[in-house]
């Protein structure tokens, strides 16, 4: 069953990746990246069990944290960029 889960996770990762490719807006891509991160956490946890060395869950934990941090950072900076664009337009007017 673990193997099946691993394969499924890889498949979902491929799906998310293709969304990141097409994704018309930036937010689609962030969504895909976020999803990708969650899948990575799960994949590492499952692989740890599959290889019979489950003490490597620390890595999965790092991923859970870093993923969150990354998404927050992206969103903050996008907001910043939007702000700047708006300011620039107001200046034009």
């Amino acid at each position, binding site marked *: *069953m*673990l193997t*099946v*889960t691993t394969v*499924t*996770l890889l*498949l*979902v990762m491929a*799906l*998310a990746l*293709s*969304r990141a490719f097409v994704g018309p*807006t930036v*937010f*689609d891509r*962030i*969504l*895909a990246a*976020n*999803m990708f991160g*969650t*899948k990575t*956490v*799960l994949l590492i*946890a*499952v692989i740890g*069990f599959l290889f019979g060395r*489950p*003490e490597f*869950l*620390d890595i*999965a*934990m790092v991923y*859970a*944290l870093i*993923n*969150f941090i990354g*998404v*927050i950072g992206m*969103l903050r900076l*996008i*907001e910043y960029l*939007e702000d700047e664009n708006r300011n620039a337009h107001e200046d034009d007017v």
Partner: protein
Amino acid sequence: MDVYELLSAILLAIGSFLLLSGGIGVLRFPDVYSRMHAAGITDTLGACLILLALMLLAGLSLVMVKLLMILAFLLITGPTSSHALGKAAWKSGVKPLMGKALNR
């Protein structure tokens, strides 16, 4: 012991199914908000189920505690980042598809 393994296999199966449906949803849905809906919900529940299944496999040990911590982190961060994403998308003027635009 056998019961645990069976239970974890069932949980893994359900979790994988949820994740897969989420992945398809992300690929097929028409706009950011519905995609977020697909990804957010299935992600959280699917991850919960898979981690629970692994916990059953691990038994009572340090590994289980770590899995519990990962689960807690995912439960906190998943919805939060979805919220932040939705808010940012809304503020930057991405409108959800509604009514006739959906049927196109």
